[in-house]
């Protein structure tokens, strides 16, 4: 069950261990999305539960040709979180409860943006180690290519090719799996 494809195949076969493996692999991303969409931690945890239960009962509906398992799970989670927001608003109106908000409501990020970030982060995690390290230095440490070469001791040409290939993988994954993939124009990439 190492690869996503194997995992998805086992899941479709009704192997409960595959669901556990999917939870171990993607539960954190699902919780991250839910937590950012809902102000209550309890609600976010509910959404994680609902998502994996729905993934289990709806496992026949997952089509690997239309996106990765992570993207599918995040799509379910997004819908569950929206349902939860609506029903929470309805419950509050009915009961007149003012919900305790442990976290002050920040400026809400669109769920599509959160999904994009999770999908790209996941792909980054799948890159070969040297490519990933190089891109992380560019993303998170804001280093230029020559600085990355100096830090890593890699030749500048290698740094450039790592970044080009890494970016091509991230871009492809984002175009396939990003939340707005349906509406986004996916001009074929010439970058190989």
């Amino acid at each position, binding site marked *: 069950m190492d690869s996503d494809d194997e995992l998805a195949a086992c899941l479709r076969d009704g192997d409960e261990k595959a669901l556990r493996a999917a939870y171990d692999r993607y539960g954190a*991303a699902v919780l991250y999305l839910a937590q950012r969409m809902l102000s209550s931690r309890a609600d976010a945890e509910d959404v994680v539960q609902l998502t994996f239960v729905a993934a289990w009962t709806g496992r026949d509906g997952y089509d690997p040709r239309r996106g990765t398992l992570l993207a599918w799970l995040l799509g379910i989670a997004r819908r569950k979180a929206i349902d939860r927001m609506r029903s929470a608003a309805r419950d509050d109106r009915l009961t007149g409860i003012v919900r305790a908000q442990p976290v002050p409501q920040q400026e809400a990020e669109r769920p599509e943006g959160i999904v994009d970030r999770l999908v790209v982060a996941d792909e980054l995690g799948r890159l070969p180690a040297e490519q990933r390290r190089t891109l992380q230095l560019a*993303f998170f440490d804001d280093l230029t290519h020559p600085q990355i070469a100096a830090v890593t001791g890699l030749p500048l040409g290698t740094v*450039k090719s790592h970044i080009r290939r890494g970016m091509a993988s991230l871009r492809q994954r984002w175009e396939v799996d990003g939340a707005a993939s349906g509406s986004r124009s996916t001009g074929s990439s010439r970058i190989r």
Partner: protein
Amino acid sequence: MQHLDPDRLVLLAFAEEPGNDDETVHLARCPGCRHDLASLRQVAEIGAQGPAASDLPAPPERIWLTIEAAIADSGRSPAPVRRAGRQKRRWLIAVAAVVLAVAGTVVADRIVRRAPAETVIARATLAPLATVTAQASGSVRVLSDGEMRVEVHHLPLTAGFHEVWLIDPDDLTRMVAIGNLPDRPGAVLPVPPGIDMNRYRLVDISDEPNDGDATHSGRSLLRGTLTN
């Protein structure tokens, strides 16, 4: 037409170098390269926002336990125990309807007038949790007028206060705060109108510190389930 070199596009996307004149002219003319550059810029931006996948905190194991339980439940054909429970719940829905009615619609008013105010529509015997002295006890009666009468005995002293909750036993994270207990054995608290008491049927009395945090402290003292 000579398109921009992929390495150059990446550098431009990271804004590491400004485009030279030839590149600028080409970009102005070539939708393909413009699209590639825009995509790469977006990906670089999204990637830099993170999170780093390794930094995502793993979800707590208790969530998995609820998933497992739900799956086990859905796999079985309807269990007889559950069905028995459902009948009672149907009755409790009626309770909820009455409580809801008290909220003040005309129809509700009529129902309440027909039923004597003192009619007990649900009750619970409260038992101490394992960590609490066995002497502690309590009882709860919900009246048809939407009042909840709470009686407690031998509750452990608290540095803060005792609070009454209605909890959904099927999902212990869902609860409604009913009110605080005064410093005497008996209290009358209004049940907020519209509470689904078929769902929120577990009565819980907790020890709450005076810390301004409105959520449940996690220190439950007494619990009991509302029944007719």
